[in-house]
């Protein structure tokens, strides 16, 4: 279902950049580059009217997300550990919301949340959470940090575990489809990595990038997962 929305969302993929551009243009406006700015803004609007999410609607939706995902998308420990969204890569963010809709990632609550979002809203939310930068929520055991850092940076060659840093980056900020892990709740990271094959890539007809992590999650022991989760959760 909702496959019809996919081309729309793809069309909006450039949107975060456009929002950022719009902000920059706003600044330029203030510094009197008035004509150029106005021209660009008009061009943006004409290109994709779908991208215009009323500010009030966006704010209401952000507040709604924050009920569970914590103030500024910091993450929150409800009945389940609810992941940090702040600073997340927009491409990953949007793909996960699509994954809930398409049941590639099975989660009843997030399915309900996601399937009412318009492509433009989805893109705006991704851009907004990307810009938030609250402190990590904390709560992970500090004594595992050193072991976790070693796994993160070097991997475990003898167990066919590649260095996490090679895809998620040396600061765990992620890139594109690779999620940011820095500041992510350690218990959330733990539950994902110990449960990967039951949660991700659940639609065989529609395989996705989650396949990349399957062997890594499989080869890590629980203590190793705990260590690397503790390490990334404390990264700012």
């Amino acid at each position, binding site marked *: 279902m909702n496959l019809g929305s996919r081309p729309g969302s793809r069309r909006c993929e450039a949107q975060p950049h456009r929002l950022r551009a719009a902000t920059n243009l706003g600044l330029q406006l203030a510094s009197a580059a008035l004509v150029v700015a106005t021209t660009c803004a008009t061009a943006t609007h004409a290109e994709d009217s779908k991208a215009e999410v009323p500010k009030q609607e966006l704010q209401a939706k952000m507040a709604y997300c924050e009920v569970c995902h914590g103030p500024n998308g910091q993450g929150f420990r409800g009945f*389940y550990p609810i992941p940090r969204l702040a600073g997340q890569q927009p491409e990953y963010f949007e793909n996960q919301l699509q994954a809930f809709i398409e049941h590639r990632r099975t989660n009843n609550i997030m399915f309900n949340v996601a399937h009412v979002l318009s492509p433009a809203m989805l893109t705006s939310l991704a851009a907004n959470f990307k810009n938030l930068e609250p402190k990590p929520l904390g709560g992970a055991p500090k004594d595992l940090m050193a072991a976790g850092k070693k796994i993160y940076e070097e991997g475990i060659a003898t167990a066919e575990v590649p260095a996490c840093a090679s895809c998620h980056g040396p600061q765990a900020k992620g890139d594109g489809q690779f999620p940011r892990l820095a500041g992510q709740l350690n218990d959330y990271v733990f539950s994902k990595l110990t449960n990967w094959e039951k949660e991700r890539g659940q639609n065989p007809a529609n395989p996705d990038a989650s396949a990349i992590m399957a062997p890594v999650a499989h080869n890590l022991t629980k203590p190793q997962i705990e260590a690397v989760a503790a390490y990334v959760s404390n990264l700012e």
Partner: protein
Amino acid sequence: MGLFAMAKPAEPYPDFPAAAAGSRKRVRRMVNRVGLQAVLPAAMLVLVVSASGRAESGGLEAKIQYCQDCHGPSGQGYRGFYPIPRLAGQQTEYFENQLRAFVERRRPNNVMANVAHVLSPSMISALAADFRSFNPPPLGGAPRRQVAEGRRIFEDGLPGANVAACAACHGPDAMGKGQVPRLASQLYPYLVKVLTNWGKERGQLPAHPDTSFIMAPVAHSLTRAEIEAVAAYLSYLK
């Protein structure tokens, strides 16, 4: 009707001065005893036991009895002049935080402020642990016809109205976790009262914001009928 009366937080309440004074004496007695025992090295163990409140079983039993005067047998909840919440099975972290909230006036309630401010930290922990272990059946009494709709709201939320699924934080069986309260078997009129009055009852000390702010937009976005439905559903959950 009774529900609306609850909307006025400053209503004068009956008080329990005799019981409160008695418990003050008990606390003093407990402190004295612990002080003497601490002189002996072997008393370290006793101190540890005292810290968890278990050493004062007499005091604890009397206090549990006192709580049940209003909160019902085994903390089942009770319909007094106001709906008085079920405490049985409640999350200990939430339970303790609410008692502190009454003392600090984050949650204004004259009766509960008086009850809470005489409790020692160890007594609070002991009470929280005891009520957590009770498991009486739900008190019941809610309209049945709203249960199905309430379940839908609890499990799915109202995404179009920006109402988060209750289950995300309170758990699929509404048992709560840590700071997030158990809602299963909670009294229908109590839930309705709290949700229709959230902004006036919780987080009332701006200098000391607490986790109650999380629920503010949810309570605000739910209609009265939706609140009644979800309260009815929860009140029957075991």
